[in-house]
């Protein structure tokens, strides 16, 4: 499983997205599902930079992927602050525009677009595993 290392800055997001596009094509996802995986990875990497490292250029993001018969498995690793996922809440759509909060949207996207999401912390690394199955509803 090849690993690609990127500097933890927002400019890396477009480069990571190119790798995600290669992976989703290789796995054979349709456009909508591929877009969802790209979104999930983008949100996860943005969270690593913003929350785990607390800003740009504080550390690296390691990206790797593996394709099995029925799954695309993407792993992201960073050495930032330990991540403790909070409760994932669906955005409230029945509130007026001025009261609409956009807090937690990235995390919500990750869980909606991927079929399985796992957080782990080992040997000083945050390890996020994102899994998409073939043919599953996004």
């Amino acid at each position, binding site marked *: 499983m090849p690993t690609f290392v990127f500097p933890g*800055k*927002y*400019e890396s*997001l*477009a480069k990571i*997205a190119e790798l995600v596009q290669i992976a989703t094509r290789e796995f054979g996802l349709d*456009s*909508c599902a591929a*877009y*969802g995986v*790209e*979104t999930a990875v*983008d*949100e996860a990497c*943005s969270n690593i*930079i*913003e929350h785990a490292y607390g800003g740009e250029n504080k550390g690296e993001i390691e990206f790797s992927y593996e394709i099995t018969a029925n799954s695309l498995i993407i792993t992201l690793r960073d050495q930032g602050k330990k991540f403790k996922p909070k409760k994932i809440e*669906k*955005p*409230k*759509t029945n509130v007026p*525009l*001025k009261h*609409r909060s*956009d807090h937690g*949207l*990235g995390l*919500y*996207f990750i869980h*909606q*677009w991927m079929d399985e999401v796992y957080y782990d912390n080992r040997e000083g690394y945050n390890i996020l595993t994102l899994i998409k199955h073939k043919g599953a509803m996004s």
Partner: protein
Amino acid sequence: MEINHTEFKRCDVVKVSGRVDSATAPRLAEKLNEIMDAGRYRIVLDLQDLDFISSAGLRVLIGAQKSCKRYNRGEVVLANVQPNILSALDLAGFTPFFKIFDDTVSAVGNF
């Protein structure tokens, strides 16, 4: 990301192309703020060539909509929204907050 801004008599059309993510969203916010700071609050966002928008980009859209709709002085409308982008807007629960038009001409005609 590329931004093309055209000022019309009754509204402004902003064509956003490429990727709007955490790296580029601040530039989109800056452009929309510049338009609103000039006292112009009727904005058409042409998303024909928008390939990708993350939550950072969606936050810019909702922020601009909040500013434009304040005092009932205008609004942001969307045109040429591609299916993947629409899915993202929908998942975020943002579709009820924007009028969506099939093309830019109809969107401009709204104002």
